[in-house]
């Protein structure tokens, strides 16, 4: 299977603090990777660099043939629009836009908007009857499903999910996880940050971090039972 993500000796310093310290790994297209580790271990920093939200101090982070470290501001903007779909723990929806408009916003920054396509995307995550609702009128699970629809609308090469179920109750967690499973079955490549071992086991592989270093990479043994 082709390599979609290649990280080589990646370092990131915030002043005197080293958030990532010589991290290297590869992700094949279609893989679901769980990135685990304690708070402050560098998981989110890695996700931000792979998503073009941040730049590494040294090293390479190649996504779909593009070295993120070499992109300028304009290049990073296009990279984020065309190759990445983000799902955040805090959902991060624009509060004054409806569910439909939040999805269309990603289309707008990518190329052109297609309201019908955005509506279908929301129907797919079970929110066909909530498209005109503002985020304030949606539950946490519903907001996260809007974020999933938004992440998928431009057919990104890589889905980066940072604690996607961290703010959800059990029922909504299961809904979002089943969506991720479905995306994985369809062949999407997913890098998901999580604290929960049970969720981590759903992935094809787990990459564990501690103090900015990759300490363990393992196949998720319980995956068949939970899938």
């Amino acid at each position, binding site marked *: 299977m082709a390599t979609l993500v290649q990280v080589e000796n990646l370092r990131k310093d915030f002043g005197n603090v080293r958030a990532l310290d010589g991290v290297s790994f590869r992700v094949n297209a279609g893989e679901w990777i769980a990135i685990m580790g304690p708070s402050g271990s560098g998981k*989110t920093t890695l996700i931000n660099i792979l998503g073009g*939200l941040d730049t590494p101090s040294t090293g390479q982070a190649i996504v779909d043939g593009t070295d993120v470290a070499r992109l300028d501001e304009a290049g990073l903007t296009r990279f984020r629009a065309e190759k990445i779909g983000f799902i955040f723990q805090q959902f991060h929806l624009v*509060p004054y836009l409806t569910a439909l408009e939040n999805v269309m*916003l990603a289309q707008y920054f990518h190329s052109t908007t297609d309201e019908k396509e955005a509506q279908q995307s929301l129907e797919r995550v079970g929110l066909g009857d909530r498209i005109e609702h503002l985020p304030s009128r949606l539950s946490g699970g519903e907001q996260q499903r809007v974020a999933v629809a938004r992440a998928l609308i431009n057919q990104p090469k890589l889905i980066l999910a940072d604690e996607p179920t961290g703010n959800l109750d059990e029922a909504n967690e299961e809904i979002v996880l089943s969506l991720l499973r479905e995306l994985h079955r369809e062949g999407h490549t997913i890098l998901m940050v999580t604290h929960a071992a049970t969720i981590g086991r759903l992935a094809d592989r787990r990459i564990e971090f501690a103090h900015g270093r990759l300490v363990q990479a393992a196949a998720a043994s319980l995956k068949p039972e939970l899938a």
Partner: protein
Amino acid sequence: MFWRLVSQLLRGSRGRLAVAIIAIVSGAAVVSALLNLDLGVQNKLTQEFRTLGANIVISPARGVPAQISGAEVPALMPSDGVLQALQQLPSAQVAAAAPYLYIVARSQNIPVVVAGTWLDQAQKLDATWKLEGNWVASREDDSHCLVGRNVARRLHLAPGNAMELHYMDRSVPCGVAGIVDAGDTEDNQVFASLRAVQSLANLPGQIGLAQVSVAGTAQVVASCAAQLAKALPQYQVRPIRQVAEAEGVLLGRIRLLIVSMVLLILILTALCVLATMAALAMERRKDVGLMKSLGGSISRIVGIFLAEVGVLGAAGGLLGAALGAALSYWMGLRVFGTAIAPRWEVFPATVALMLVVTLTGALPLRMLGNVKPAEILRGE
């Protein structure tokens, strides 16, 4: 999607933007009113200055007195040439004109200065005159006269009374149409028809001077005076400079005041918009961080916010311009007694000024270009 976003931004931030829109509408209203006032004030001031009386006087070149029947009278000139020259002036610019022949006659054995003139022009030449009784509507009316209030008091005259004017061995009767209160030397004079006074003094076709009230700026008055001087080289044609210059000076000062106030208001409006936008930029850092993470370039994102500000400026400018037109109408009524009609060119000018002001006030939005999405999404 662009305008959909702008519309949702406006709706979503209407509380915060209310302050800015109030500032823009208020600023635009005052600016529009002042601009209307500036354009209308020239006409109004000219009208006001016309009430101060004539602004051109035509008189014989030198004050060489004439000898008539042994009595000395001021230098005279034939009225025909003067009246012909007056007719050559553009009729729209001549607000009023009248020839004058002054003599000192007697009534009830008391000497009185009698001015023979066109009585129908008296009110137009000096609108500040107050009258008890009636004006004389026709310059052909030889049987009525207007009496200055001091003369009326001395001779115990009231509107409707009859009086007789004596000069040398001639006399002429006239009915008092009205008593004039001019607050000046005219209060000591009697105003009778030119023809009657010429007949009384036995000076047919002669006048002592002519007064002209020209409607227009100091330049227009000077131009009319030059035209008359060219047509009447044998006479002295003098623009009354105090009136013309005072008008010019006052217009200049009013214009300076208006321009200063417009600038001040524009600066204050810009500062108010600036303060609102600075607060709004802080509030929207999270939205901008998110939009950047979705692949939005800073030019597209700031473009949305600038369009929002532009809509505010244009809408506020239009509304304010309409309010300002009403305000200038009211100010015209209060200050000049007549309304100042709104000028169409003030509307686009006000909207353009408000657009410039709001876009200048939106400078804090440039700070959004420095937003780092990773920091914002981390909650920093």
